[in-house]
């Protein structure tokens, strides 16, 4: 895969001095403050949903945007982690933190298994293989006796943070989720900008060349896959606690498609793109829910238009504008 158009804009912006380390710091500080202020203005549950999906999409972007691997089965990690967390918290009565850890660990191990099989084929086959395994996970979840089948796993308690602070209130829960999001986002950011991340990009740009330079390409791909799966799991576990419910929709292939749309729409291969895309897609799901089946049609149409005419994504387009009107 060659570099996605969004990232070319990001690179040009950095070269022209539009993105500088100082400006970056100011931007991220402003964003972090905005995140603290938002729940006073916007409904916290909606925000928490956005944060979970933003983390999910950012983790996905580590693969698609930075390694050039299109996983069509990322819902498997999001959803299975949600079920694991829901089950250990509800049935075993484990504390919230251990529940999150269990879900994340499960998704990580699942990522290791699926990833080590899927990277044996390249390109478009990789997408088909991940889709297949995710469908398998979907059927297993449907058939599990404790998963609640079509109804999902309901009545998951949020519990108490460190056994002290109750998380039942949406306000407290929001700040907890926000902390998880920032942690996950930081891990992804550090991964992208580490030497390891640079090798990933080299693999995306030119895999044979990275191989000939002596990098164990398969290992790098696998590690990226496992990190991505683990963080997708963290997002899913958190979501199960937020909604107090693990839903079959989170394991379904529609969700795997949705996370691709978030990344593509926001700008694949850009740091902020997936979060912007997640905000838009969750808002669309939320505010258009009354339209029923039309939501699917709209999501499909957005997909088609984005692929045909808007491949840089929103963040990519903003960067392109910034290049033409430098400030």
């Amino acid at each position: 895969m060659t570099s996605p158009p969004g990232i070319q804009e990001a690179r040009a912006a950095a070269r022209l001095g539009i993105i500088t380390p100082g400006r970056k710091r100011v931007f991220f500080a402003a964003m972090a403050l905005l995140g603290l202020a938002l729940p006073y203005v916007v409904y916290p549950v909606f925000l928490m949903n956005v944060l979970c999906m933003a983390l999910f999409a950012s983790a996905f972007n580590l693969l698609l945007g930075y390694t050039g691997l299109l996983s069509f089965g990322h819902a498997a990690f999001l959803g299975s982690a949600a079920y694991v967390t829901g089950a250990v918290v509800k049935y075993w009565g484990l504390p919230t933190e251990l529940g999150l850890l269990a879900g994340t660990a499960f998704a990580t191990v699942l990522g290791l298994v699926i990833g080590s099989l899927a990277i044996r084929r390249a390109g478009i086959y990789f997408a088909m293989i991940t889709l297949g395994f995710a469908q398998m996970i979907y059927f297993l979840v449907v058939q599990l006796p404790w998963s609640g089948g079509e109804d999902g796993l309901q009545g998951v308690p949020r519990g108490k943070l460190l056994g002290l602070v109750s998380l039942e209130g949406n306000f407290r829960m929001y700040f907890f989720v926000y902390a998880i999001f920032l942690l996950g986002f930081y891990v992804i950011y550090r991964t992208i900008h580490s030497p390891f991340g640079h090798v990933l990009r080299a693999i995306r740009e030119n895999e044979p060349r990275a191989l000939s330079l002596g990098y164990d390409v398969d290992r790098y791909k696998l590690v990226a896959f496992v990190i991505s799966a683990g963080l997708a799991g963290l997002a899913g576990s958190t979501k199960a606690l937020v909604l107090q419910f693990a839903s079959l929709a989170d394991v379904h292939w529609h969700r795997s498609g949705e996370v691709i749309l978030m990344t593509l729409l926001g700008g694949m291969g850009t740091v902020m793109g997936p979060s912007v895309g997640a905000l838009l897609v969750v808002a669309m799901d939320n505010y258009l829910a009354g339209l029923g089946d039309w939501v699917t049609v709209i999501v499909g149409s957005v997909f088609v238009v984005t692929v045909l005419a808007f491949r840089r994504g929103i963040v990519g387009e903003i960067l392109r504008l910034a290049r033409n009107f430098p400030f």
Partner: protein
Amino acid sequence: MIQALFGQLLLGLINGSFYALLSLGLAIIFGLLNIVNFAHGALYMVGAFAAWLMLDLLGVGYWPALLLSPLLVGLFGAFIERTMLRRLYALDNIYGLLLTFGLTLILEGLFHHQYGNSGKSYPVPEALQGGANLGFMFLPLYRAWVVVISLLVCFASWWVIERTKLGSYLRAGTENPRLLQAFGINVPLLFTLTYAFGVALAAFAGVMAAPIYQVTPQMGSHLIIVVFAVVVIGGMGSILGSIVTGVGLGLLEGLTKFIYPPASATVVFVVMALVLLFRPAGLFGREA
């Protein structure tokens, strides 16, 4: 007991011939256009709905529908190729997959909005009602017809591609479209026809499926994911390979349904995992 076993095997054989028809179309499209057509399952569903609508609204029966529905879906495919897919050939092939995924959502959403979840039943054509008692099992005539005709269409496609002039253009285009164009062949038209033909095969399978399964908006989505697995297992390099893999996996599914029903939905993916472990290029695959 024996009755049940052969009943499941027959159903597996039918599914297998649908897998073969669909993976054949996918392989032809991918070979020339370098696009993995996610919409294949949705167009199979549209094919089935087209037959049902023709009967319901116009009173057009099974036999004309068997021809008309693939024709209509083929035309629709040509439209998709001309207006959308054509713009993506110069790009990475993930965009083709994503575009056709979007089309799948649109089609499924529209049909779901119009017809809901409940399945529409389509009558078995009069000439093929009833069946024969073979002693060890009862063979419904229609099911036998589906298996025979699907395999015939598969082999006819193989013959056209491997043994005719038109097929030689297709094979040449798969190797090197620019060189073929330099020889004066209308390659863009060949692309359109290939896509139309591939999705017409899917619609054909859809019409044949209509009397066996209920016609629902979701009938194609699980199918396409299984067919992807079939393609991974068989490899897209060989046409006969996709036919053999499709039929074989259908039979295996039928057998699993008899031995341990809960595993029947996932057995294909288990085989996919095994193939990736031991023969990553696929059973008939050429590329690594």
